[in-house]
């Protein structure tokens, strides 16, 4: 087959890759989008954000039904049809993935399925089912993402030791599930399985759950998990695992003491590794950092002038929306604009119960860096909306620059925090002040009011809390 010529080739069709391909096409570039999976959308759509949210939603109806008993509405105990649940979840993925393929087609983006391998800085070999195909490109954007990390010690080839990928398949509901890792993946999937009936034990090597979030924001999440899970163990390491019949024998280490327990399944959620291997990067001038992520500058340029990298493979926070933002920057740089990934506010959302979201500067970060900030808080116990659906375990807080009252960060924990945080992101991006938020009318009764009231509390005149004065 003759080599194909294109202006831009995008390797990987996740939320970074397809966003880059579409944007480049919108700007008039000839674009090829490579994906090794048959379905577009990457981890996010196929084995990450979307299916996990679908499962969380489905499981939540069980919680809702149970909790409605005290409101005088009872349903009896739920029955579970896992096959049907999986089918429903798959239908969402199929719909979204098909949508992306459709959008690519409409834009004239050529989608090719197969493994990409760099022959040199301007040539890519694509291995498809039909055979090899060479692509000559002017610029390449690498967006190959990451995968769940599986430490060698745990990699026994036993399917009962799962990563998030397998856990999202929900083959069964194990009676006893061990979740290793108290980050957002462990917390979210732990919540799914616990709600569907597993006795979940979550272990975390650090002394805190959801490191990175402010402790006061993480507290309601941890409190809920402690209730929903059988156990949450901090400062605990898993030193060994072994297959024993249909179970996995796990050896724990806490304060130097070792204990053993058996589980039906284990979910390993200890982080993610970059997919930088088997790409032929050694044939280019691209360099990797010591953790195996591709090194990029703030214009998403790698050390190879023809190659850009975006998303998880480029390191930093591994979030879909960060990948999509980087996609736009890479494309804009390619077309000659002066864009760069500087001063971009990337919000973080943990879809636990309750949800936890933050953006900009956190209180802990300010403390660690010695940045003087003022903090304004509004507890949801004072929110009529939160009371009306029995979820007062929330908190909205603003991190404020003392001299200017400017909003430097926003943190929210509570039901729907993931939806609420966007106003905070806008405030941070716009350089808004607490006064701007306080003066903006928010509809009643909504949870969004907690943002306005936190700002009002800063000035000492929130309607639904009493603060004595402007915080000093």
């Amino acid at each position, binding site marked *: 087959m003759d080599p194909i010529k294109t202006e831009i080739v995008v390797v990987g069709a996740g939320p970074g890759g397809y966003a880059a391909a579409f944007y480049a096409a919108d700007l008039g570039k000839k674009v090829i989008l490579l994906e090794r999976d048959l379905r577009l959308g990457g981890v996010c759509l196929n084995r990450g954000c979307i299916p996990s949210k679908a499962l969380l939603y489905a499981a939540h109806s069980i919680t809702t039904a149970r909790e409605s008993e005290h409101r005088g509405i009872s349903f009896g105990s739920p029955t579970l049809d896992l096959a049907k649940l999986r089918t429903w979840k798959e239908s969402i993925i199929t719909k979204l993935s098909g949508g992306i393929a459709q959008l690519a087609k409409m834009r004239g983006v050529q989608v090719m399925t197969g493994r990409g391998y760099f022959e040199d800085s301007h040539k890519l070999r694509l291995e498809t089912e039909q055979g090899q195909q060479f692509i000559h490109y002017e610029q390449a954007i690498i967006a190959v993402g990451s995968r769940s990390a599986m430490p060698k010690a745990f990699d026994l080839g036993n399917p009962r030791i799962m990563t998030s990928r397998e856990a999202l398949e929900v083959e069964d509901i194990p009676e006893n599930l061990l979740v290793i890792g108290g980050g957002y993946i462990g917390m979210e999937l732990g919540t799914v399985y616990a709600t569907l009936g597993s006795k979940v034990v979550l272990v975390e090597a650090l002394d805190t759950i959801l490191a990175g979030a402010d402790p006061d924001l993480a507290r309601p999440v941890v409190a809920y998990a402690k209730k929903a899970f059988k156990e949450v163990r901090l400062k605990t390491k898993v030193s060994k695992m072994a297959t024993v019949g249909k179970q996995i024998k796990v050896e724990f280490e806490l304060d130097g003491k070792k204990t053993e327990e058996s589980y039906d399944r284990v979910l390993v959620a200890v982080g993610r590794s970059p997919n930088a291997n088997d790409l032929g990067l050694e044939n280019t001038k691209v360099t990797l950092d010591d953790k195996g992520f591709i090194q990029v500058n703030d214009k998403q340029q790698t050390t190879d002038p023809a190659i850009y990298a975006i998303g998880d493979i480029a390191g930093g926070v591994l979030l879909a929306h960060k990948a999509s933002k980087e996609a736009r920057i890479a494309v804009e740089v390619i077309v000659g604009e002066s864009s760069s990934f500087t001063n971009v506010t990337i919000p973080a959302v943990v879809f636990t119960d309750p949800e936890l979201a933050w953006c900009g500067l956190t209180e802990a970060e300010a403390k660690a860096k010695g940045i003087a*900030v003022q903090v304004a808080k509004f507890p949801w116990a004072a929110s009529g909306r939160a009371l009306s659906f029995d979820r007062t375990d929330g908190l909205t807080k603003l991190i404020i*620059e003392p001299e200017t*009252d*400017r909003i430097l960060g926003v943190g929210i924990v509570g039901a729907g925090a993931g939806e609420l945080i966007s106003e905070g992101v806008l405030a941070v991006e716009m*350089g808004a002040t607490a*006064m701007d938020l306080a003066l903006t009318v928010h509809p009643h009764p909504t949870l969004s009011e907690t943002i306005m009231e936190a700002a009002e509390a800063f000035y000492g005149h929130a309607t639904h809390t009493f603060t004595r*004065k402007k915080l000093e």
Partner: protein
Amino acid sequence: MDFKLPPLGEGADSGTVVNLFVKEGDQIARDQAILELENEKAVATIPSTGAGTVTKVFVKAGEKISVGQRILSFNETGAAPSSQGTPKSEAKPTAEPAPAPAKDAGEPQGEPEPAKATPGVPPPASPSLRKLAADLGIDLTRVRGSERGGRIVLADLRRYIEQLQSANSGKAPAPAESNPPVAKPAPEQIDFSKWGPVEIKPFSPLRQVIARRMTENWNAIPHVTQFDEADITQLEALRKKHAPEYEKKGARLTLTSFALKAVVETLKKHPLFNCSLDEASNELVIKKYFHIGIAVDTEAGLIVPVLRDVDKKNLLELSKELEDLAKKARERKVSAEELKGGSFTISNQGGIGGAHFTPIINRPEVAILGIGRGIMKPVVREQKIEPRLMMPLGLSYDHRVIDGGIAARFIVDLVKSFQEFQL
């Protein structure tokens, strides 16, 4: 605890420190004047909100400071320290209006403000504006933001660019231009001591402010001064008659009190004298209020506090307030608010002496009345020469707004007001 620059009120969020009255180690009392701040059209003292010993001063004279900026820190004395360490000072129960957005705070400066931004945080501006600045290669940390919290908007960026351009064109070899050059050549240094002994004294920051304002007002306004004299023989008799009873009520009845009444009465007949010219929109703003500025001669220099709603106050109230304001001005305790919002100004030099003079208009006002000392003069009245107490008046007006005919009518009516004054 820290003392920060409190909100300055409408339209202002920063100013230049003219005088600093305290230093490290000083004892300060609540409401004691800490510094004098110049902003826009006013120089005002900023009083302390707490009491104690000054441990550190963070600003110096000539420095530009913004609302919320730390001025000094002090150890609180007297009151027991609150257990939680939460300072109580700024907890005013009154609903203080929020600091208004700073419109046009200060003129664009050549020197950018020192970036006191939080590390790792971009300048406060919308993402689209930051992108525009990046595209233009402009460092936004050097641009002064005019919106709440110092947020930078498109207008600020535009102003900054214009500033850069004018700075650049100023450096270029000056082509023949109609515009005056940006920077005037430094005046020649003259050694006066070669002709005799001299003494060098500093030209105080307050004087510099006065100098700049006077120059600006003089340059911006085509001044005309209309002279006349008012026969105040009867008025002076009236004053002498009522002075003791006012004295008992704790007020000094002066000619300025009468002048306030007479001027407002005349302003009501000639509203044009109580207006401002909005050059941007080409509109006249006729004020329906009568706030009269009173030029007060202080040791440090001229200060013009404003007496509000003169039309709604009686002579006793005016006399009392006048005395208070003058005292405050001399003690330099006039607040920024008390220096703003005047619609007409009176400068009465009668207490000192001298006849007619030509006062400079206090922009954005359009007229000012200068009063000289009343002296006995031979005056022809009904074919007879009589000794009458005559008071010289000089009315300077903005000829862009007011024509000579109207000014003549104004002064005629004003003289009549003085001469036919009724208590």
